[in-house]
């Protein structure tokens, strides 16, 4: 039938346009990244690091060429001297970069190997408690062990920059390998080595406990695992995990939740105010959040947000909570949508039958 042909032409034109401005454009604007990785074996991080350093080397090599050309053009002695200095710096960068990068990649690989090894050890809870009492509770509260934070959130933020987390649920929501890595070197575990590089002059508030033996770290983890946290289900669990994992820095206005670290302290600590997450399920989408929370640097190089080290289950809880707060009408929307479509289909069929009846008289 001719009208169906016209409809098909229309559908093709609209379809091509839609494909171009939606799936294709999004693909072009947001190239795919490595998917979320819950193995915590450091492989993806090292691959990303190597790639970044390779790019840096290319840029440095180009810089040498540029400076060399400039030097040839320069006539003034003073300018020549300045360019020579720059050129030497660029040359030394090109010379040292590959080795530094290789060494650092190896260091990171070894770091995660050790963490994996540590996490596999059988820990001693009693010894772990001794170690925690001696090393952790000066800054951290452990509600589940009857040891709440001794000072207020505001004071804690003023002293440390950010409120140190309560450790009650640490072993539940954080991956054991991540936790082992974190105790040994927080900055490496969180993948924020750039921000806390030696040149930055910054130090992370929590010291590295790399002087501990792997067995001792395993003991600490075992102790944290032994803490009896009230088992929550469904929405309660989602909320609790979100508040523990994200709530020290992020607010959730639509849930009337404010970050435990006061906003002005956060801005000083992070360099920028972490965003309110009320609508992030809509603005970022589940898929992006899934990859981003797992390793923020992989999607947004240089972001102040660290890798949090959540287990897959805990991360699922966090995203579920963001959806419950950011898109609470989803279920209503889907069920009403089905009813509406069914109703409209009846209308359309009746419309067709009526049209047939009426037009049978004029054809």
């Amino acid at each position: 039938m001719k009208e169906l042909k016209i409809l098909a032409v229309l559908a093709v034109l609209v379809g091509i346009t839609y494909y171009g401005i939606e799936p294709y454009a999004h693909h072009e604007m947001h190239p795919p990244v490595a998917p979320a990785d819950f193995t915590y074996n450091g492989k993806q991080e090292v691959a990303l690091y190597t790639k970044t350093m390779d790019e840096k080397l290319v840029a440095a090599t180009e810089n040498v060429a540029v400076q060399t050309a400039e030097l040839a053009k320069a006539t003034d002695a003073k300018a020549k001297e300045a360019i020579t200095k720059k050129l030497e710096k660029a040359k030394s960068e090109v010379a040292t970069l590959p080795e530094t990068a290789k060494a650092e990649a190896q260091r990171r690989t070894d770091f995660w190997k050790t963490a994996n090894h540590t996490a596999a050890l059988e820990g001693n809870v009693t010894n772990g408690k001794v170690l925690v009492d001696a090393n952790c509770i000066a800054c951290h509260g452990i509600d589940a062990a009857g040891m709440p934070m001794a000072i207020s959130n505001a004071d804690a933020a003023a002293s440390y920059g950010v409120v140190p987390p309560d450790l009650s649920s640490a072993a539940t929501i954080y991956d054991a390998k991540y936790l082992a890595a974190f105790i040994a070197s927080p900055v490496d575990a969180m993948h924020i080595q750039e921000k806390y590089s030696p040149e930055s002059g910054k130090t992370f508030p929590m010291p590295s406990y790399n002087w501990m033996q792997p067995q001792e770290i395993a003991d600490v983890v075992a102790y944290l695992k032994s803490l009896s946290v009230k088992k929550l289900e469904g929405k309660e669990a989602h909320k609790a995990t979100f508040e523990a994992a994200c709530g020290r820095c992020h607010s959730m206005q639509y849930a009337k939740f404010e970050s435990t670290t006061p906003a002005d302290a956060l801005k000083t600590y992070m360099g920028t105010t972490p965003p309110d997450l009320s609508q992030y399920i809509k603005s970022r989408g589940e898929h992006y959040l899934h990859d981003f929370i797992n390793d923020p640097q992989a999607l947004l190089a240089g972001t102040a947000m660290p890798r949090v080290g959540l287990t897959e289950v805990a991360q699922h809880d966090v995203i579920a909570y963001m959806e419950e707060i950011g898109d609470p009408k989803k279920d209503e929307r889907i069920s009403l949508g089905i009813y509406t479509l069914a109703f409209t289909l009846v209308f359309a069929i009746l419309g067709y039958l009526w049209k047939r009846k009426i037009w049978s008289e004029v054809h």
Partner: protein
Amino acid sequence: MAEFKQADSMYEWFDQRLGIDKFLKVMMTEYWIPKNINFLWAMGVLLTVMFTILLVSGLFLLMYYKPDINMAFDSVNYTIMQEVAYGWLFRHIHAVGASVVFLIIYIHMFTGIYYGSYKKGREMIWISGMLLFVLFSAEGFSGYMLPWGQMSYWAAYVITEIFGGIPLIGGDLVVWIRGNFYVSDSTLTRFFMLHVLLIPLAILGTIVLHFYALRFPHVNNLDGEFFDYDAEAKKYLDGKKVESKVVPFWPVFLSKDFFVLGFFLLFFFYLTFFHFNFAMDPVNFDKADGLKTPAHIYPEWYFLWSYEVLRGFFFEIAGISGKSLGLIAFAVAQAVFFLMPWLDRSPMVKPANQRPYFKYWFWFLMVDLIVLTIYGKLPPTGTNAWVGFASSITFLSLFIALPFITKAEGKKVGGK
């Protein structure tokens, strides 16, 4: 005053005073539409329905929306989307409806071009329709600002900035439009006024003009055939319904429209409930922040083709800056469709596939517009920029060539 006899029924009472009988005849049962049409002729009624849906959903949104930069975002995303019963439904209908209405407008418009429904007496239908297109564009643009998200803000920033390119008055004009030196609260409140009052009023008036403009030249038909409407109407009234070339607006024409409308609404509600991101950009769920430019700024899809004509000229030609050239091309693109009745110099009123030269022109235009639309969204870097330039040039060339092509066509067909 005429003498009124005692009315026997309420209907008669009203009929005496308002002439209902006659009114219904003129507007419905004896308003004649050609029989030789296809489903593309239903787009007018679809648009009327869509406008009504937008108006009604807009009224509900207006009850809770707060035009203030500190409250707008949350009044939409929290109050309307979460607190008000079915507020989310009205917002989805309004946002998706605004997008879909443009799809139908474009189909309506290119149906008109394909079948030559803008010439030989139908010029005013075309002009009033194009006016509606411009008004709907203004309505869409002003409405997009209201949720005060990142894309609201930056699209407003970029589009108002365009006016800065106008010689002499540009800078002042931008400030005048924004009511400030940057996009601010005063910009939001004036666009709110435009969106909920002035432009809708103008649209209502122009819709009336558009419908009225149809009455004398009548609706075109599939073959562009001209015939005596009075004679055909008489045949129909005499009971020769099959023989007659016309049908009454009610119930015959509308019964077909209702059928098309039903299937269109299925599509529309599917989008409203299940597939709405294309009309409710995720980026716009970040609150407006004048200090944080999004990585990619693009207007809604229905503006992309003209936006790409603006962006297409990205380098200086003959001493005129790319920005100025783009602005000129953009201005031409906005106005050129108005001139269709005079640019098309062929006397033929036929569907494009029966016109020897025009058919190529039409499909070239369609392809070019799709290319412009797609590249209007992509980042304008590398080859993308050149594709944009080529398709912008093509767009302008097509309209420069149109009078010559159609003149030649007129000669070939010998004035038929």
